[in-house]
């Protein structure tokens, strides 16, 4: 049974001239690390907010099966400025996830940020801190909308593989414009296209790599890249 099933989804912003989604259909079949991919303006964030229950008013079916808690995080979020990052992270971390927090702080390279105020961090550090506080929450599905923007490529790879290794039973929807990253680390890739193209969503299979090392022949990666490029 798919964890996310979208059927005949139609949506137009109240102030919009044309529909954003026209008969959108796709499925995320299992838990794991998946991606929503597409050009800017195709509705990735809108779709993410619909899945997270933040946006309603659409027609059609969007069913989440076997997942009670869906969180959506994006790269523009901020932490309050009245305390340092370490204190704010500890405050929102459930007791059961304290060890995960320590591990994530180490893997994400956040030790140096813990005694600073959020506003003083670099954009990449801000995004890593923000993602960390979501990861230690008890979620079933986490939608990461450009959550690793401004983070260097090596660190991004380490973070993605670490997330996959710590949380193999959770479901992640990764929104990114980095085609190589999406191809390499994601299992199911939902490519959203403009509503003029039907079907509007194309589902592809990524390489689902579990480590930062290059896995398999480079032709496999090229194959996925070509498929995504062709789909968009």
């Amino acid at each position: 049974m798919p964890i996310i099933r979208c059927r005949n989804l139609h949506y137009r912003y109240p102030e919009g001239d044309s529909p954003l989604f026209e008969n959108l259909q796709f499925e995320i079949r299992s838990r794991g690390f998946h991606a929503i991919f597409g050009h800017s303006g195709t509705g990735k964030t809108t779709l993410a907010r619909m899945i997270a229950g933040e946006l309603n008013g659409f027609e059609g079916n969007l069913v989440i099966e076997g997942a009670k808690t869906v969180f959506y995080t994006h790269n523009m979020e901020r932490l309050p400025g009245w305390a340092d990052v370490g204190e704010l992270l500890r405050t929102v971390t459930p007791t059961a996830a304290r060890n995960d927090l320590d591990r994530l702080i180490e893997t994400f390279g956040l030790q140096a940020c813990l005694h600073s105020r959020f506003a003083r961090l670099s954009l990449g550090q801000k995004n890593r801190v923000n993602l960390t506080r979501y990861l230690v929450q008890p979620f079933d599905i986490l939608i990461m909308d450009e959550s690793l923007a401004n983070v260097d490529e090596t660190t991004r790879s380490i973070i993605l593989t670490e997330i996959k290794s710590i949380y193999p039973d959770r479901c992640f929807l990764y929104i990114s414009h980095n085609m190589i990253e999406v191809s390499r680390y994601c299992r199911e890739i939902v490519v959203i296209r403009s509503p003029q193209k039907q079907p509007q969503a194309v589902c592809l299979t990524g390489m689902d790599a579990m480590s930062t090392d290059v896995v398999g022949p480079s032709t496999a990666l090229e194959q996925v890249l070509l498929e995504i490029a062709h789909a968009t």
Partner: protein
Amino acid sequence: MLRNRMVQFLLLYVLALAGLLGLKYGLGLSDYIIPPFLEICRTGLDVTPRYVAHVLNTLSIAILGHAISLLLAFAIGMLAAGKSAIAALVKTAAYNVQSYPIVAVAPIIFILLGDGLLSRLIISVMICYFPLLLTVMGVLSEPVEDIEHFYRMTGHICWGLQVRVRMFENIGKLTTVAVGSATMAMVGTIVSEFIASNAGIGYSIRVALYQSDMAKIITALLWIGVATSLYLILVEWIGNLIHRRVAA
């Protein structure tokens, strides 16, 4: 800060006085309407000790009224920050009440409470409170989406946290409004004294008005300006202190 504000006020005062004297000599107005410069100076020296005491009296009421207004505005503003039925009721009531010129209610207060300290204080608070309340309510009702999103999504949000986030994010705006409302408190107190009090500089101006004594009014305005400037400087200093502490 002290020197700048005082210099600005004195400059304006001198310009206004020069304009008034220019009008007198330009239009050939009598000494009864606008006294000559020397007469203004003589009256000023004569009434200054009394007027300074009156201004201090007015200022003490204004400071008390300002403090009460701030407390009330923040308490009611916090109450109106949520999405409950009470919050909606408070907001609607505040918007409706503030649209009425509150100074028009002043005679009723004087009839009910007499022309003592309490009436002056109440009118001062009322004039200062409503504009302050609207700003505080506006600030505390506006979500800081990029911070609150996480707490709302993960179920950590509560009324206290929401208020804290919004106050912290708008501390500059709130301190500016608090500083700005100090003038309103002074205006409210003078208006109340002008209407029906038996003390304060507003009352002195009313007496001078009945005597058609322009020199006394000009002197009163000088000390009102000096006192208001000093109070604004003090409030600004406190505001900056809070701002710096919060932002540190």
